[in-house]
Structures are given as structure tokens and as C-alpha cells.
């Protein structure tokens, strides 16, 4: 009897303490604004998506997405606290509130979306498994790879995708398996295999490690779906909307021809779509708890989607990855953002 009473008292006293985190964590925007920085979980080292340059700055597509969120939420793209995360640690870090948003080359899959307590907000980069071959092989399509020796990395989904693809197309191959991207590109360069297979974004990064990058070409076939995008914790719809629309704002800006270079001129545009985007007409920021000029700040300080793509992985970078699936819907790609209105 006595024990039960103490136990009851203990639970009564402890209960509020246990409740506090859940309620306090819900309002991410308030926390971000109080802290005056967005904590963004990124990859410590992923060429083109998140890496450190000579001047201690993070560069990459994923990190620019973080900057866009900071520009929208705080009006200053530099107010990002980048938290480098390991691939096993990333989900726990998001759940525990260590980071406000996870932008770390994370593939959007049903199991991650439904079981890990997180919501994907969109797709910042459509990746997929591809093949790289030596140019002097003269291969034009992956369908011609029957009997080839293929280098892959162990323990990734690439191995599985590879065997599926060759079986479906009634082809055979010899797998040469390596542990790391460095080893597999070294094996490819040394002629251990004819073909290197991995996610396209990684293949382009491996390609420029070759003594002569022009000796290899990436084939056009993409054999798996790897949509990469930012993710937030479940249970905070306002923050979910902010992250989602930060990405959409960049896509809409590209579609409307508003870029980092011309955004100030576009302020006086009389295109109603541009006026709505830049906050000249209506107040779409307020509905999310943001300033009217939230999208203007994104484009001004970070750029539109084409700006960040070209700078980090596209023509303005060392990788020179063609837009492909990541082109806008009207240019033959599948990047499509709902309109701002």
C-alpha cells in the first residue's frame, strides 16, 4: 500500500517532466527563431552535395537547401549550424531534435517515411543507379553490357539493383565487389572491370578522380529510383510547410525566370506569378509564420534551383552532371512545384 502511494506520487511528479519535451519540441520555427540559427543535418563528406572547401565553408546542393531554409525562416542564409551526421546516426539525430531538418542525401522510401517518425518534404535531387564505362569501349547503352565485368560497392542496394537489371534483360555479368568508392574507382582505372555501377551522382564524383576523366562516360540508363530530399520530424506541420515551400520556391523561381542575378530587377516585374513569389502581391509568407519577402530572400541569397544545381553539380561545377530528370517539367525533366498563389 505504502509502496503504491510512493509510486503514484513519483509518477505524478515525473509526468509533467516527461511531457515537457514533446510539447516544447513541436514548435520548431519558434525554437529556430529563438536560437537564431537552423540546425541542419548534412553529410560530412559527399562530393557535390555537402563538403568542406578550403575556406571552411560547406558547399553542395544539400547544404544550399539548408541555406534556403535559413533564408526563409530567419532572413539570413548564413544562419545555418551544419551538423555533420553519420548515415546510421542521421534519423536518431532528427528524432531527438539535435537537428531541425535533415538534408543529407537521404533516399525517400516508404519505410523511412512511415516508420521513422519523419516526413520527407520533397525531392531536391532525383538520383538513380547508372553505369560508367571506358569511352574507348564504344558502348552506347547499358543493354550492350552482356558478359561485362562490373565493379560495385558491397553492402549497398546497388548490388541488388544490378542483379535485377541484368536478369530482367537476360544478360550475364561478373561482379567485382569493393568496399569503398575510392577502391572501386581505383579498380575501374586499373582495368579490373569494364563497367562501374553506382548512384549517378557518385559516378560523376568518381569520374573526375580518374587521371583523364574523358576516358570514361556515364551511360544514359538509370536503373533505380533514388529520390533524395530534405526531411523533418513528424508532428510540426508549420515547419514541414516551411521546408517544403523553401524548395518549391526555388523551383518556382527557376520556372518564372527569377534567378539570383536578376531577382532585384524582377521585383518590379508585372507578371502576377513573379509578384506573388517575391511577396509584392499577397502575403503567402505570413501563412507559414514567415516574412512577406521569404522567397525573395531565398533567391537573393541562395539562388533558384538552376543556380544551386549548376553551382554544385551542374555545368558550373567540376562534375558537369546534365540536368536529366532534374530538369523542370517544361524542359523534359520531372521537377515540378505547385504554384504559389
Amino acid at each position: 500500500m505504502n509502496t503504491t502511494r510512493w509510486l503514484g506520487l513519483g509518477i505524478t511528479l515525473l509526468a509533467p517532466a516527461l511531457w515537457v519535451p514533446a510539447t516544447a519540441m513541436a514548435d520548431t520555427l519558434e525554437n529556430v527563431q529563438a536560437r537564431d540559427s537552423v540546425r541542419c543535418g548534412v553529410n560530412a563528406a559527399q562530393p557535390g552535395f555537402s563538403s568542406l572547401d578550403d575556406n571552411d565553408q560547406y558547399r553542395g546542393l544539400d547544404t544550399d537547401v539548408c541555406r534556403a531554409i535559413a533564408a526563409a525562416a530567419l532572413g539570413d542564409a548564413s544562419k545555418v549550424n551544419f551538423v555533420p551526421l553519420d548515415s546510421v546516426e542521421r534519423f536518431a539525430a532528427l528524432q531527438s531534435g539535435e537537428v531541425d531538418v535533415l538534408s543529407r542525401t537521404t533516399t525517400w522510401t516508404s519505410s523511412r517515411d512511415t516508420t521513422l517518425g519523419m516526413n520527407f518534404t520533397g525531392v531536391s535531387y532525383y538520383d538513380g543507379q547508372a553505369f560508367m564505362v571506358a569511352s574507348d569501349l564504344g558502348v552506347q547503352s547499358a543493354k550492350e553490357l552482356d558478359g561485362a565485368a562490373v565493379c560495385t560497392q558491397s553492402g549497398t542496394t546497388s548490388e541488388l539493383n544490378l542483379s535485377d537489371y541484368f536478369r530482367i534483360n537476360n544478360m550475364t555479368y561478373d561482379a567485382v565487389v569493393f568496399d569503398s568508392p575510392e577502391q572501386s574507382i581505383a579498380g575501374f582505372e586499373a582495368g579490373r572491370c569494364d563497367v562501374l555501377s553506382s548512384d549517378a551522382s557518385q559516378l560523376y564524383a568518381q569520374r573526375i578522380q580518374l587521371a583523364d576523366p574523358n576516358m570514361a562516360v556515364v551511360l544514359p540508363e538509370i536503373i533505380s529510383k533514388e529520390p533524395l530530399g530534405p526531411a523533418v520530424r513528424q508532428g510540426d506541420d508549420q515547419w514541414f510547410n516551411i521546408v517544403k515551400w523553401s524548395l518549391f520556391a526555388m523551383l518556382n523561381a527557376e520556372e518564372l525566370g527569377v534567378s539570383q542575378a536578376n531577382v532585384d530587377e524582377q521585383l518590379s516585374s508585372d507578371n502576377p506569378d513573379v509578384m506573388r513569389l517575391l511577396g509584392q502581391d499577397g502575403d503567402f509568407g505570413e501563412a507559414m509564420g514567415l516574412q512577406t519577402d521569404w522567397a525573395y530572400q531565398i533567391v537573393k541569397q541562395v539562388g533558384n534551383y538552376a543556380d544551386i544545381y549548376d553551382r554544385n553539380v551542374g555545368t558550373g561545377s567540376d562534375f558537369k552532371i546534365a540536368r536529366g530528370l532534374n530538369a523542370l517539367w517544361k524542359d523534359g525533366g520531372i521537377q515540378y512545384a505547385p504554384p504559389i498563389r
Partner: protein
Amino acid sequence: MIHNQTMIEQRPAPSSSVGAVAWLRTNLFNGPINTIFTLIGLYILYLLVVPTVQWAFINADWVGTTRDDCSREGACWVFINARLSQFIYGLYPSSEIWRANIVFAMFFSLIGWLAIPRLPFKRWVAIFALIVFPVISFVLLYGGYFDLPKVPTHRWGGLMLTLLLATVGMVGALPIGIVLALGRRSNMPIVKSFCVVFIEFWRGVPLITVLFMASVMLPLFLPSDMSVDRLVRALIGLTLFQSAYMAEVIRGGLQAIPKGQEEAAAALGMTYWKRMGLIILPQALKMMIPGIVNTFISLFKDTTLVMIIGLFDLLGIVQAALADSRWLGFSLEGYVFAAFMFWVFCFSMSRYSQYLERKLHTGHKR
């Protein structure tokens, strides 16, 4: 019989039995089998050393700022050069690096002062190093006082972070380890069982788990407005983990002291702490130097594991630099640099411990 002849002058030993030639003959070429093995050994050495020297020195590129300055025939030390400040200070803002430099300078001069026996005032320097220096370093590195801008710990990294983790781990683990070792030998049941449980728990889990729990699980239990700094969490985890190992090393030393020593001290009327502090521990710690340094060196290398919780130690920052598209493909140079830095520190520790052993040698060696 009387010899008329004068004694033959003493002559030097034949050149075949002294000097380098004799050494070669007795050690490397004393027989056909050894000769063959020597030649094979020399050939293997030749195969290894020549390309290494060519790669690392002769064909290497030293000056420049971008990857285009590297011919790619040998090592591209330009990469290390361009990134050196990042490798040493992590993401520490370049305008504030002087603060880190002061701490580095104080750190190495204090260590030097304590390590070189000729220099005086050891006791005061030690007190300064253990009490004043940590405060000064914190104020300088973290800032926030005296108009120094704050540098949050997530910007600390590189060699600075490695040394910080290792030093705090060592300085923290040794006293905790001593207390735990004494506690484990204690007759008081609560103290003893606490120490046993503590040591066995921390020794029973891998360091990665400790760091992972500290970094990822802890925030789940704490209210969200209360956050403990990542680095502090890693430091606490590392120190507790190492102190469990240290405790067992020291307990090994304590076991080796004959029971008569303590009984004699007790017979002189010494209290427990006097017996331990004046009789037992000085003898035990001296014998434990190899074990303690072993633990220190493994701790120094274990600090690289903080990489998995997103802290950029020396190895972590090198790996991060390898992903920069401007420097892709220079992983060999990066890893060689990291290995060299680790070797320098671990080797110095090991040499100093050997020196210390010789200095404290009082005939206990068997």
C-alpha cells in the same frame, strides 16, 4: 729460455675482425644461407624504399594552391598545404586562430617544462597546468569573456580537437581510475560494489556505443530546452570509458605491491590515505607506467571515433577534405598525413614513458 728478440709491437686487430666489415660478416654474411637471406632482404627493401621515396619526395609537388599545380607523378603535398589550417584548427574562424595558437603554445611549453627535469618550480607549474591552464584555454577557445567573440564547439576540429579530447581524457581518467582501483580493493561493501559495477559496465560496452548513446540517445531523455554540448558529452563519455580501463591497470599495479608494505605502514600509525599516498601508490604507479601509457596511446587513437558523432577530429577533417570536388582523388596524401601526425604523438608518448621508467628505476626491475 731467454728470448733476445724484442717483443712484437702491439698491432691493431685485422680489419676483417673489427669495424663495419666485421659487423657485416658476423651478422649478415656468416654463411651461405644467411648471405642469401641478407641479399633477398636488401632486394625487398630496395623494392619498397625506392618507389616510396620517389613518390613522397622526388616526384612530389610541394608548392601551389590548386590541384592543377600537381603533376600527379608523385605525392601532391599541395593538398595538405592548402588545407593545413583546416587540419589543425578545424572550422575555427581564421580571424580567431591566434587564440588557438596561444593555447597551443602554452600547452606545449607546459608539457615541455614538466617533462624536462632541469627546469625548476615543477610543483607550481603542475598546479598551474592543472588548474589555471584549463580555465585560460576555455576562455580563449570558447570566448564570450573579455569581448572575445564566442566560437561554438561545433567549429572546433582537427588536431586541436584530437589533442583536446586526448588530454582531457587522460587527465580525467587517471585520478578517476586511481579512485576506482582503490575502491575496488576496499573492504567497504557499498564502495566496492559501486566500483565493480562501474568498471564492469564501462568496460563491457564498446566505445562507439558510449559515444553514440551520449550523442544521440541522451537528448531524447533531456527536455529539449536543456541541451548539453556535443563535445562535452563526448568528453564525459570518453573520460568515463577510459577511467574504467585505467582503474584495472592501476589495480594490477596495486596487486603487485607486497602486503607487507601496507602492514608496515599501518604499524607506523599511518592513516589509510597516508598509506596509499606515501607508500603504496608511488610504488605501484611507477611500475604501471607501461600499462598507463599503453592506455593513453590507445585513448589517443580512439579519439578518431568521435567522427561518428559528427565531430571533426584530425582524421575526420582529413576525410571531409577528401570529398571536396576540388581535391577529389588525393586520399593517399591525406591518410599519409594523418598517419604521420598520429605517429608523431604516439611515438613521443612512448619515448617519454621509456625515459620516465629509466629515471624512476630504483631496482624493482626484474
